[in-house]
């Protein structure tokens, strides 16, 4: 039996400062992250003790230096929020890692809450800058000059599933899923393969099939083996191949369908061999083919289109789910995915209110035709960038949303609620509630631990190696009767 779904996303945002020739991205990021204030707001460390980003899922440890900042730097770069998220400076980008959720609908709510937190931070940060200088933030993945930053998905998996079994079906799945979850990009960043427009922001940046790296020689399947949970039982699949999506519908499918495929892998339900001859070449070719008609070479020498490969996965999913009871969200995800696959076979442009690359393409083409522009025009590139702008009054995605031109999955009320409240059905609940209730006593946090600094100067760390414990069901009553962290620890019997 596949383990229950637990997932989350880490979104790195692009930043720029208008009218500041001395713009320094790192200090700007520190400013953005620290401009965000919550009540209560503790000075809390990110606990690096448990981290090991150099462990490889194929079973070895890579040589390299593990980064651990000093205490002051740690607090300046990291915030753990009462909704259970981590909000921090990652290299030269502000990054929002949403709390662990159990379904695609909550994932949309919490990723969208991150967009709002970013925008609130941006406004606060701007109020501290000189007149005329303005900080801008983009939820995209490329500057169109060859620099890319990621939107990583994380899925909890059963460690008993051999990693090789995970990789084999994922290579064709990840190389082709962009036909329904690409965010769209004007132009190419692959020098030898120019194009006007392509499906994915990220496809130009993948150079290898399977590896540990995320910044150079990017792999389609990343092998970082850092489960942030009981490593005897779980692995965390760290997916770096996806785009930063704006459309709720696209985010919903991206995570919902991928989670379903992973359950199928765990349950041995991958019955078709969809192995590609050259996945790295495929991911680029698929992204550059707007007609979805391009024939890809399979390992056995036959050819298929990206859509046919996705149809293969859909067939397997329908067979898999026919004998299982799905919850309401899973059912809805499957139904919507099936509709999208069918529509892609008919006319992709019918998805111009649902799938990012189509929404963006339709918008740009209409604008080009009205203003008599071509794909090379700077205004067209601006439209692409501004589709991802975090400002509700300037961001083109938000403008379409306000006008009811894109289909939504969740409500504004739910998103606002998630800005201040953790999901109730994962350990994020315990993390967030401890931060809300005992801000002065929380000393450090990581995904799988929380430590308290007590009056007697001792530090007590509580491990949370089970992502589905620490939920409201398990701990709400305990929290209710614990006035202080000291009382909480006592009530837990430590």
């Amino acid at each position: 039996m596949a383990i229950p779904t637990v997932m989350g996303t880490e979104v790195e945002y692009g930043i720029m400062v208008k009218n500041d020739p001395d713009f320094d991205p790192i200090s700007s990021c520190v400013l953005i992250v620290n401009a965000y204030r919550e009540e209560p707001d503790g000075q809390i460390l990110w606990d690096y003790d448990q981290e090991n980003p150099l462990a490889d899922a194929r079973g070895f440890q890579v040589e390299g230096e593990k980064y651990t900042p000093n205490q002051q730097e740690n607090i300046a770069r990291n915030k753990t929020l009462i909704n259970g998220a981590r909000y921090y400076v990652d290299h030269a980008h502000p990054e929002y890692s949403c709390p662990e959720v159990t379904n695609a609908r909550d994932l949309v709510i919490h990723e969208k809450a991150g967009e709002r937190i970013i925008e609130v931070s941006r406004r606060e940060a701007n109020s501290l800058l000189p007149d005329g200088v303005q900080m801008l933030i983009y939820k995209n993945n490329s500057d169109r000059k060859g620099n890319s930053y990621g939107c990583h998905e994380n899925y909890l998996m059963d460690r008993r599933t051999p990693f090789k079994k995970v990789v084999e079906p994922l290579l064709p799945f990840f190389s082709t899923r962009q036909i329904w979850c690409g965010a769209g990009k004007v132009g190419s960043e692959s020098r030898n393969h120019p194009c006007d427009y392509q499906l994915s922001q990220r496809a130009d940046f993948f150079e290898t099939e399977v590896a540990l790296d995320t910044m150079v020689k990017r792999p389609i399947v990343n092998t970082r083996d850092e489960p942030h949970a009981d490593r005897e039982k779980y692995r965390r699949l760290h997916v770096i191949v996806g785009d930063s999506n704006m459309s709720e519908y696209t985010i919903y499918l991206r995570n919902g369908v991928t989670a379903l495929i992973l359950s199928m892998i765990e349950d041995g339900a991958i019955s078709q061999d969809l192995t590609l001859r050259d996945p790295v070449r495929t991911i680029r070719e698929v992204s550059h083919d707007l007609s979805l008609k391009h024939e890809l070479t399979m390992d056995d020498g036959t050819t298929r289109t990206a859509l046919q490969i996705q149809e293969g996965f859909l067939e397997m999913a329908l067979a898999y789910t026919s004998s299982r009871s799905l919850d309401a969200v899973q059912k809805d995800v499957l139904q919507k995915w099936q509709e999208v696959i069918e529509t892609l076979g008919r006319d992709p442009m019918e998805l111009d209110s649902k799938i990012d690359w189509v929404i963006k393409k339709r918008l740009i083409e209409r604008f080009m035709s009205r203003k008599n522009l071509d794909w090379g025009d700077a205004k067209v590139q601006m439209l692409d960038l501004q589709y991802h702008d975090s400002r509700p009054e300037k961001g083109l995605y938000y403008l379409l949303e306000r006008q009811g031109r894109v289909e939504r999955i969740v409500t504004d009320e739910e998103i606002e609620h998630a800005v201040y409240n953790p999901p109730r059905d994962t350990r994020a609940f315990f993390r967030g509630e401890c931060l809300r209730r005992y801000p002065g006593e929380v000393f450090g946090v990581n995904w799988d631990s929380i430590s308290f600094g007590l009056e007697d100067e001792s530090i007590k760390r509580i491990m949370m190696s089970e992502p589905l414990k620490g939920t409201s069901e398990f701990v709400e009553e305990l929290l209710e009767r614990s006035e202080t962290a000291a009382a909480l620890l006592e009530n837990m019997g430590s």
Partner: protein
Amino acid sequence: MATFIRDLKRPRGEDPGVGQVDGQADPIPFYMAAGEQKQKSKGGGGGDGDGEKGEAGQKLADKGEELKEEMDELLEEIDAVLEENAEEFVKNYVQRGGE
């Protein structure tokens, strides 16, 4: 404190597309910043059954005209919010790699 962490009651068994939250504290009006808040129904169409063919055809033509006007308005709105000096702007948008 108890009211602050009020339960999020989403009917789990129902169509997830229509889930609602209750017990909200004042939500921040995130989308209040820009212009009008009009909600336009997409695709609409569908005559209402009464009237003759000519009238229905006219209605359809009117509807088409209306949609075109809406689209023109949208494109003008986009043009108005688009960053000035696009060429300079996209040239200056340079990021360091991340991840």
